[in-house]
């Protein structure tokens, strides 16, 4: 929204707000605020995220060299970046550029498993806890808060040690960190929506708790989730990369940014002046997480009504 539009704010506020479909609730503020800083950042973030999804899907076509199997060793090892190998080659003589492109697939897969599972568990538990209240609520809250206070990476590391390596196992390991997060957000939102007039009306009409929770409250809680979803996705990618860096995440030769950094570190590449084996995988992690953060924080500024009020 530009400055001149602000004079109509009062008039706009009086208009009835019509319920919008889920995507509309997200896209509308994005479209309307595309000239503000938060809007621009959101769009940049969205662009980066979409670009990475495209890279992940098209990796088999985009990558100039194979990354698994005996044919993956395509050049002498540790060649500096050149026109034939844009990002150089690594310890085993693989093309870093190809591995970096394929790495997008691994990263997005792990992140998706972790965050979606966390939502699938944290959301219903939060809804139940917030709606029922009382002792049950307080006990679940205490447990979730205790887990939340513990360093996420250490918790995920512990689970990863027990489950072993692999994309799916690491996805589960990082789920543990984000369940308390989704629980917290859902519960707090449920607590405030529970007191809305329309929920009271439903209760007055004799709707059962299950119906109230899922038909009246769930949707209105869910619309606040995308912000948290984007931010936790960024964190999930960092954590997964951290696990791989510590040697607990993805098994070689699966291409993975964290794993490639770990190998570079183990061989002491940096000490030998070889920077390209760690620089490029790390750069990809940063680009993707920055994209997700821009999207999450931008959306937060646009959608979060509390911040809006402060702004005015």
């Amino acid at each position, binding site marked *: 929204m530009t400055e001149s539009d602000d004079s109509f704010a009062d008039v706009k506020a009086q208009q009835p707000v019509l319920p919008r479909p889920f995507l509309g609730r997200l896209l509308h503020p994005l479209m309307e605020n595309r000239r503000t800083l938060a809007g621009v950042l959101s769009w940049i973030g969205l662009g980066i995220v979409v670009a990475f999804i495209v890279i992940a899907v098209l990796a088999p076509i985009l990558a100039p060299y194979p990354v698994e199997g005996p044919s993956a060793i395509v050049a002498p090892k540790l060649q500096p970046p050149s026109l034939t190998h844009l990002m150089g080659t690594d310890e085993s003589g693989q093309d870093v550029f190809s591995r970096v492109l394929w790495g997008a697939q691994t990263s997005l897969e792990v992140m998706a498993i972790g965050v979606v599972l966390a939502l699938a568990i944290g959301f219903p538990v939060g809804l139940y806890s917030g709606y029922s209240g009382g002792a049950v609520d307080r006990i679940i809250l205490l447990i979730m808060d*205790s887990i939340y206070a513990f*360093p996420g990476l250490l918790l995920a590391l512990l689970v990863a040690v027990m489950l072993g390596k692999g994309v799916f196992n690491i996805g589960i390991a990082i789920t543990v960190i984000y369940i308390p997060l989704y629980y917290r957000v859902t519960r707090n939102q449920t607590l405030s929506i529970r007191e809305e007039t329309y929920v009271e009306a439903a209760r007055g009409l004799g709707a059962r708790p299950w119906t109230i929770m899922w038909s009246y409250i769930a949707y209105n809680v869910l619309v606040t989730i995308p912000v948290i979803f984007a931010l936790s996705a960024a964190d999930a990618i960092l954590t997964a990369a951290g696990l791989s860096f510590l040697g607990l995440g993805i098994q070689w030769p699966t291409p993975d940014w964290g794993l490639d950094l770990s190998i570079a570190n183990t061989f002491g590449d940096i000490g030998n002046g070889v920077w390209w084996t760690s620089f490029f995988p790390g750069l990809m992690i940063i680009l993707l997480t920055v994209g997700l953060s821009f999207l999450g924080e931008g959306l937060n500024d646009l959608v979060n009504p509390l911040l809006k009020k402060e702004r005015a």
Partner: protein
Amino acid sequence: MPRRGSLVAYGVTRLVMAFPMLLILLTVVFVVLRIIPGDPIYALYGGRAKPSVVMAQRHKLGLDQPLYLQFANYIAQVFTGNFGTSLGPIFGGQNVMDVIMQRLPATVELAVGSMLVATIIGISVGILSGINRDRIVDVVGRLYGTIIFVIPIFWLGLMLQFVFAVDLKWFPVNSRFDVSIPPPATITGLYTIDSLLKGRLDAFAVAVRHLFLPCLTLGLVLSGFFTKTVRANLLRTAGADYVEAARARGIRRRAIVMRYAFKNALIPVITVLGLEFAILFAGAVLTETTFNWNGMGLLLVNSIEVQDYPLIQGTIIVYSFIIVIISLMVDFLNGLIDPRVRY
């Protein structure tokens, strides 16, 4: 009984409430290590060991007992500080607690140094951002806060190593001390403090040179969080009535920012400090691995590599204790500064 709202009453309440938190954390660790599919010995040997060896190890660790007995033993172990003996090739036969205590000072040194870097940079950028709201300085400051926070610690560490240690040779690449000269005699285990206590300024300089890059790495990443919190709270307090009043009395802008707005903006920063420490310790594990820094984090990673189960469990438990104690201290500090939270 102390008066409601007094600092003592608040402290006691927090202390009592810390126990369930600790117990829950310990239970979570227990659940993860003992109940998740399979058992530690199977996970550690990966099915390669003979059944008789596995049985013997299971018996030695008490894993063949019923779960409730295991849990009781585990809790007893934790509160008597006896975590058993190490099974790994490096520390085999040594008391787990002793091994951890040898490594703890290195982590403390790294943590304190990083926190120092994070507070100085984070709060400065946050203030600059806050007082220049929506101007170019603010935009740069906010971008800094967002981007620095999502840079992988190990990547930043490697890049700083490349620029400042390998290329410019200003600092050593990794490890805690030079091999060529002896480290200071152990008093606290903190190389910086020990060398000062012994009056060895040369050793102090070496220790600080080794500390610089790891602390800068971890501190920079942590500073993002401070930047955001300080900025947001400065904006909030800048609009407060007492700031308006100060402005109306004609007090200079700089004085208003420092004495009125900033002081009150710091209170919520202390509240999030607990969360910051959780990130700090997770980050320390990565930093220690990157810089080959001989602390608890590297100990944990190494004991995972050699599958030293008692040492893994012991390290994680010590981390849990540290986290609970720090969150207690942060709460207490909060109550000291802001009387409102005591109720």
